[in-house]
């Protein structure tokens, strides 16, 4: 498909902008099929994803350990630019992946940690326990998932952490309206 030449561009010019259209180069991959067509690519993909689920716990453990390793480096060397980035990326990956892997509360705790890293004016002034509690919570949620009562407890734990983190962030950003707006803005992803 990609080897085909792009169609001719049509350009309409205005005083301060151009509007460029081209024949849809991907139109050929759109097939008209009868209503009776039984092909279900989404269902097929969901099944394939379910087929991977046996690996999710292991993947989540790897992600949580990466976060703990990044945190250990911060504890040893402080918040350098690289250390901050690695801690943020490790937390951010958990935030994005954990729900897919079946650990939504770990994702919520990781999101709370991401907000601290992103919005604290000076990470060296963030109470060390606040960050440590987030990391310990994520590890605990991942390790204890198989226990019966942990889903409710994990959700409660991540909500409490988020509450404490938000209280801290609102306090330290009271003179930084841009950050306050971002902290208070609702997420586009519905809460669990």
């Amino acid at each position, binding site marked *: *498909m*990609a*080897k085909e030449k*792009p169609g001719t561009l049509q350009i*309409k010019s*205005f*005083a*301060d*902008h*151009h*509007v*460029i259209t*081209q024949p*849809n*180069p*991907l*139109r*050929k*991959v*759109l*097939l*008209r*099929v*009868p*209503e009776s*067509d039984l*092909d279900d*690519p*989404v269902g*097929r*993909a*969901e*099944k*394939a*994803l379910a*087929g*991977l689920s046996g690996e999710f716990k292991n*993947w989540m453990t790897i*992600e949580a350990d990466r976060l703990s390793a990044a945190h250990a480096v911060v504890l040893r060397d402080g918040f350098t630019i690289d250390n901050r980035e690695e801690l*943020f*990326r490790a937390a*951010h*990956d958990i*935030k*994005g*992946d*954990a*729900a*897919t*892997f079946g650990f939504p509360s770990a*994702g919520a705790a990781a*999101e709370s940690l*991401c907000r601290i890293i992103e919005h604290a004016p000076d990470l060296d002034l963030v109470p060390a326990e606040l960050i440590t509690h987030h990391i310990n919570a994520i590890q605990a949620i991942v390790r204890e998932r198989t226990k019966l009562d942990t889903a409710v407890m994990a959700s409660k734990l991540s909500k409490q952490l988020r509450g404490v983190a938000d209280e801290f962030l609102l306090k330290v950003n009271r003179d930084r309206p841009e950050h306050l707006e*971002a902290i208070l*803005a*609702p*997420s*586009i*992803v*519905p809460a669990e």
Partner: protein
Amino acid sequence: MYRIDFNKLRFLICDDNPHMRRILRTLLHSFGAREVYEAEDGATALEMYSHYVPDIVITDWAMPIFDGLELAQMIRQPESKGNPYAPIIMLTGHSEKRRVTVARDAGVTEFLAKPISAKGLYQRILNVVASPRPFIKTKTYFGPDRRRNTNNAYIGPERRVGGEMEVMQQPSLLDKARSNI
């Protein structure tokens, strides 16, 4: 009813997380795609973009070396030798409204907030295949038309000078990002 013939599409996926790449690859292969190329950072993705000329790019935002936002900006160079018009789907853990706006202003075509779902990904691909938007070029922007709605209640100056253009009726990127998550 329409269906996408995925085996004719070439994808480039860019994510530094190997687990997410595996999930994406699994989903795309299950849809029927055969050609799926993978990069683990923006710089490698840009090289692969020039080499493999993918039909659709799916990229993460937060990555080392240069990130998905910079990748989108590098692809959306109107004078570049490569194809600056390829649809870019940003698949990211960022879930704030302002991020959607920043991605849009970098030339991203569709925004999909993690956690990923087969349905959400399929719908974004269907959107870029079935409903491509015209491109707008100004002094400061080159990318898909950012105006998806005609807002009859808008009061204020027309920011595009020199005539009123037709705007395709589509839900906003933010509304689409919010849906089907």
